[in-house]
């Protein structure tokens, strides 16, 4: 039997800020080495506080955090050396040149400039920043700044990469190229923890997931099991011709959005054929259809709503 090393192990972590706000209420979480892990939750749920504590930017109130079996309270230097952080907000010295930012960051990890330089060049090329290497970071576009933050987090070759909403405000083309880049890094063995508001992103990239809401983990499982729990999906159908006023779909939840658009809820184990047969019987022709929401989004909303109801 293979015992997988834990890249991250959090036990009973709490955080109460000075103003009395209880951001984390005793969360426990494990992330295995090599995993691509999603940490999701609504705004203010405690994601950034959790990441802040793991990376020593926030002081915890109680509990323990171990990174590759190293307790951050006992040997914080070793624990920090395993981690690369891509924060949510841009946090460069705007006046420093792109390449200097990378070489300085490597230096803080004890990597001398002569060793850091080739690594910085490699990352600048991979992330499409080579032409901007002598540009002050404040002159970069938003997308370039995001890529620079990824390059900076990787310059010391971390074993655990933590990305706090790395694709916020990034156009779809760049987002997809970042996904490919992150998947390649993960395939090479880097453990990745991702927080994102794009649930499609989490569903596409991550194998395991935790959902946090109001400082409590409301779900922690693998993505496949979670998606299998989805017992119904909602489809939006575009119709070729307007519905008649007396149109009904007996035995189904449906909603007429307008004369030519219909929203229908389907049980997961029910095929689409029955629905189309029922529509055909009434002479309704469907020209196109789509999921109303991403599958994970539906589950996410259900889980967060449920936690609201119990609190």
């Amino acid at each position, binding site marked *: 039997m293979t015992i997988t090393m834990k890249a991250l192990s959090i036990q009973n972590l709490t955080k109460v*800020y*000075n103003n009395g706000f209880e951001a984390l209420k005793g969360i426990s979480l494990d992330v295995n080495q090599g995993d691509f892990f999603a940490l999701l939750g609504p705004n203010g749920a405690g994601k950034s506080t959790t990441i*802040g504590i793991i*990376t*020593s*930017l*926030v*002081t915890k109130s109680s509990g323990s955090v171990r990174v590759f079996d190293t307790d951050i309270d006992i040997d*914080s*230097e*070793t624990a*920090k*050396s395993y*981690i690369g*952080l891509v*924060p949510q*907000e*841009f*946090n*460069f*010295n*705007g*006046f*420093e040149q792109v390449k*200097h930012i990378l*070489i*300085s*960051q490597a*230096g*803080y*990890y*004890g*990597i*001398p*400039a002569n060793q850091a330089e080739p690594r910085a060049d490699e990352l600048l090329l991979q992330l499409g920043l080579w032409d901007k290497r002598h540009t002050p970071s404040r002159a970069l576009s938003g997308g370039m700044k995001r890529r620079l933050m990824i390059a*900076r987090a990787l310059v010391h070759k971390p074993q655990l990469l933590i990305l706090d909403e790395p694709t916020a405000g990034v156009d779809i083309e760049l987002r997809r190229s970042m996904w490919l880049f992150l998947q390649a890094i993960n395939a090479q063995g880097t453990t990745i923890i991702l927080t994102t508001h794009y649930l499609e992103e989490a569903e596409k990239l991550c194998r395991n997931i935790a959902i946090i809401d109001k400082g409590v983990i409301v779900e922690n499982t693998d993505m496949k099991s979670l998606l299998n729990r989805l017992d119904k999906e909602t489809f939006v159908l575009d119709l070729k011709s307007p519905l008649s006023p007396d149109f009904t779909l007996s035995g189904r939840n449906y909603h007429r959005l307008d004369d030519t658009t219909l929203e229908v809820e389907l049980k997961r184990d029910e095929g689409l054929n029955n629905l189309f047969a029922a529509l055909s019987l009434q002479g309704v022709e469907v020209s196109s259809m789509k999921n109303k929401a991403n599958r994970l989004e539906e589950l996410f909303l259900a889980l967060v709503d449920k936690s609201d109801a119990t609190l």
Partner: protein
Amino acid sequence: MMTKFARHRVAFSTLLAREIRRFIRIWPQTLLPPAITMTLYFVIFGNLIGSRIGEMGGFNYIQYIAPGIIMMSVINNAYSNVASSFFSAKFQNHIEELLVAPVPNYLILAGYVAGGTARGLCVGLIVTLVSLFFTHLNIQHIFITISMVFLSAILFALGGFINAIYARSFDEISIIPTFILTPMTYLGGVFYSISLLPEFWQNISLLNPILYMVNAFRYGMLGSSDIAVEVAFGIIIVCIISLTSFALYLLNKGTGIRD
């Protein structure tokens, strides 16, 4: 595999290099103004007014004030370099680059203080060169001169660091230099010997640490001082130890940098 010492050495030299790069990059704000201001001091207080004052402490006036003016520029620049650099790092959040890295707090402090000291010494050298256009400086005690300017730069760089830790706005890093540091410097015997003051004000002046630095530095350069040089060294070393301990306490507690 690098030793911890080797990693720390690289981290420290990286931080110091970044700090030096910063004040050189913005030289019109950091290196040029003290050269111009101090030239004006030499012209106005040294040449124009000084020629009417006559001798002070056995030296012509411009010679007497030159060490104080050099020390004043070292103190101000060491202080303001660290105060503005560390506060900017907090303000732009790029202090997080250091906080997430395996850089112990004492190295963060050492890197910033070394950067401030470097700027203080650099400006001190520039002002010394400027002063040579106006007067002769025959250094009497080279070791005392160098060690005093070095220790003073360290002390005020530490002061700037503590100021930046507490500061929440750019205003708060200019309040102390404007309302405390500048008056203390002017009243620290840069332009006069405290023997000219009534006894009460002489005793009050002895509470001002800048008086000891200026006089010990003047002793190193001219061989003349209002106070005992050993006392000056003792006071500065005690102040450096106290401020270092306090700055490390604040960093370890996370004051101003960690939630």
